[in-house]
């Protein structure tokens, strides 16, 4: 950080490749009132000057409006985003809406199934930029049938949404909490732990075959990463415009690996380079991915879009059991290299880190689904997995004499992809 904010010209002696932390410490140690300190003050002023001018201009525009010809020449662009529709009780609909457009929007009327319908809005009918409202509509919705809701603004513009299958939205009580937890256990926890049971097998296999399984893990992870990235982009389209869904994806996908890399560097510097680090990072990445998956499952289940039938549960079992394999393969490889064996409790911890977030996701998704958070979780998950793939690659690189061009390794990677694809057929709803 200090490298970015300090003026490069004031430190002509700094040499590329020198330890960064030491360098930062030496700057901080400079006594107050010294010429270097004064120089820094001048530098800060140089850096702040454009910001001060910008703030003054913003204030002026707020007070007097921009000079020019583009004021009120055309009607305001309204952009409402309907975030969620819930059916908390028979005869009641709730619509959560956010204004992601540049101007305030006034909800004048509401239509349900092509009929103007009486309703109430919590708070004013005029929604400011980035503000949210909940609209309550006492409407006799019909179990199992679709309903269409249209919001009519004061300018006559309409914003529509559809309830695909009307069913009562689960309320957060003990029973639904436990059933959502079960959903998460089926889809995330059980499969991951099943996968962990390959540990004894992997310990026995020959080194060449272990490499094969590591490559297979890379294949699995690449698949999961791309899947999470795709989900993130998909839900980002549902995020209100002002929140810039695609930018959120970018931040998640790029920011997460950077943050993880920084953390891992800290760990290794402290000498705590554990053979479990790689496995922990993988478990964390998979856990973040599963958090997003839980969100989607919970939300879809709550809105009646999916029924958790036997087929789907089996599908999740097959699909996500591979995730457990992905965790233990690097553990065995790393442990083998450093002659350390992971304990039982640590393995359970890894499994929980990777699987349990599915439960959390199912709860969040089931009770308060938000496209914004779902996008962010998936983006972070994609970024984390990306980082993990890189770490495995690094692991190979450190060991040397491993090549992806090796037919067995290439086959492993491809098989990882194929495995995810095939088992994915079962969950593609």
């Amino acid at each position, binding site marked *: 950080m200090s490298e970015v904010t300090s003026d490069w010209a004031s430190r002509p002696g700094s040499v590329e490749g020198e330890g960064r932390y030491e360098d930062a410490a030496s700057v901080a140690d400079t006594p107050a009132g010294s010429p270097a300190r004064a120089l820094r003050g001048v530098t800060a002023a140089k850096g702040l000057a454009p910001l001060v001018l910008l703030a003054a201009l913003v204030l002026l525009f707020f007070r007097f409006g921009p000079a020019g010809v583009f004021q009120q020449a055309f009607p305001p662009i309204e952009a409402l985003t309907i975030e969620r529709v819930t059916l908390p009780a028979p005869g009641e609909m709730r619509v959560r809406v956010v204004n992601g457009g540049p101007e305030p929007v006034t909800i004048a009327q509401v*239509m349900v199934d*092509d009929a*103007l319908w009486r309703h*109430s809005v919590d708070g004013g009918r005029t929604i400011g930029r980035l503000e949210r409202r909940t609209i309550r509509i006492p409407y*006799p919705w019909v179990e199992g049938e679709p309903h269409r809701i249209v919001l009519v603004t004061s300018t*006559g513009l309409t914003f529509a949404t559809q309830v695909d299958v009307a069913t009562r939205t689960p309320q957060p009580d003990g029973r639904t909490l436990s059933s959502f937890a079960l959903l998460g256990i089926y889809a995330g926890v059980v499969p991951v732990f099943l996968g962990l049971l390959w540990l004894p097998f992997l310990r026995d296999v020959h080194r060449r075959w272990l490499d094969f399984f590591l490559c297979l893990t890379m294949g699995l992870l690449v698949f999961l990463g791309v899947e999470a990235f795709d989900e993130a982009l998909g839900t980002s389209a549902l995020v209100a415009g002002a929140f810039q869904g695609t930018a959120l994806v970018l931040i998640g996908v790029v920011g997460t690996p950077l943050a993880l890399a920084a953390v891992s560097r800290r760990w290794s510097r402290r000498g705590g380079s554990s053979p479990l680090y790689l496995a922990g990072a993988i478990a964390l990445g998979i856990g973040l991915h599963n958090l997003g998956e839980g969100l989607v499952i919970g939300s879809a289940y709550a809105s009646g879009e999916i029924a958790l039938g036997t087929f789907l549960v089996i599908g999740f079992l097959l699909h996500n059991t591979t995730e457990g394999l992905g965790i233990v393969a690097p553990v065995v490889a790393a442990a083998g290299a450093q002659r350390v064996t992971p304990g039982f409790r640590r393995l359970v911890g890894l499994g929980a880190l990777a699987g349990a977030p599915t439960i959390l996701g199912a709860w969040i998704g089931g009770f308060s689904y938000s496209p914004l958070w779902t996008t962010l979780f998936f983006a972070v998950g994609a970024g984390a997995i990306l980082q993990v793939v890189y770490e495995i690659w690094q692991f190979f690189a450190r060991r040397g004499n491993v090549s992806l061009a090796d037919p067995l390794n290439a086959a492993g990677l491809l098989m990882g992809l194929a495995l995810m694809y095939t088992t994915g057929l079962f969950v593609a709803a």
Partner: protein
Amino acid sequence: MPERDEARGVPRGLEPLGPSAVERQARLTRRELLKVGALGAAGLAAAGGALTLRPGGAVAREAEGGRVQGGAASAHGWHGGNGVVGTLEPGGFDPTAYLTHFETGRVSRLASGQVLREFDLVAVDREIEVAPGVFFPAWTYNGQVPGPTLRCTEGDRVRVHFVNAGSHPHTIHFHGIHAAAMDGVFELVEPGQSYTYEFDAAPFGLQLYHCHALPLKRHIHKGLYGVFIIDPREGRPPARELVMLMNAFDTNFDNENEVYAVNTVAFHYQRHPIPLTVGEPARIYLVNMTEFDLINSFHLHGNFFRLYRTGTDLERYEWTDTVTLCQGERAVIEFTYEHAGPFMFHAHQSEFAELGWMGIFDVREAPRV
């Protein structure tokens, strides 16, 4: 004279609370009343004052409190929820006044002795309210949609001074028998220009006028139309006369209507029922100017009416309770209520009815003298 009496516009049992309160009051259907009854005193208490017992046993409800009304929501929710919320901005077009307002023009006599009626129509762009809080950028005659109802007698000389104060070329095309130059099709009146239409009123019946500039669809659905009544020389039997023009608005300009109404404002006569008296003959001048979904209809509850297609014949055409009209078609209908109470009238296209084309006649017993 326009019926402006707000108090009379409220069904019996819902006595006015004062001019402003009347606007906010929404009436309950019988079904809702039953539900409230079933809910009982506890439910009323739970409603937290949202329901107010009125003298006469009827229940007044705040239509728009901006707050969810607990028990009240489940009481009125269900099938009584079809309608709009909020109130019209004061000072705008009043559909209740429009119902019974007839422009008969400045009357004088020509040298021949023929009656001359002169009218002024000005095309202006104006934002109108088509449902409470929903504004539509309309093109209007005299600032209102529908334009003023023009009325004359068969054989009168009609002279209409038209000024285009709008932003696009417009015309006035009268339905009737007249010279080609008076037909308002080829003589486009540019913004800032004017034109005088002059013809002898014929034939008697229920006519209409509308802009015939191209593109026709847009000039019509933006609001340039109005009712034109030519009375027969011998007149029609005395009755309470009401003008109803069926129209609709495509507020988001996707060539589909969002709001349907009779006389522009969705659900206006549901919220402000039209008072009638048992035994009193009523006559409706019914015109269809719906754009996009061209076929519209009128259905009367608890009664039958005599139908005079286009009103050009004094012999009744049919004895019915529903009439279907295509765009530009019109009919005179006459009826008398035998029973008191609230009676619905609406398009018998359920979708149109639920999007605003629905109203209520509040029929009362004749006062005993």
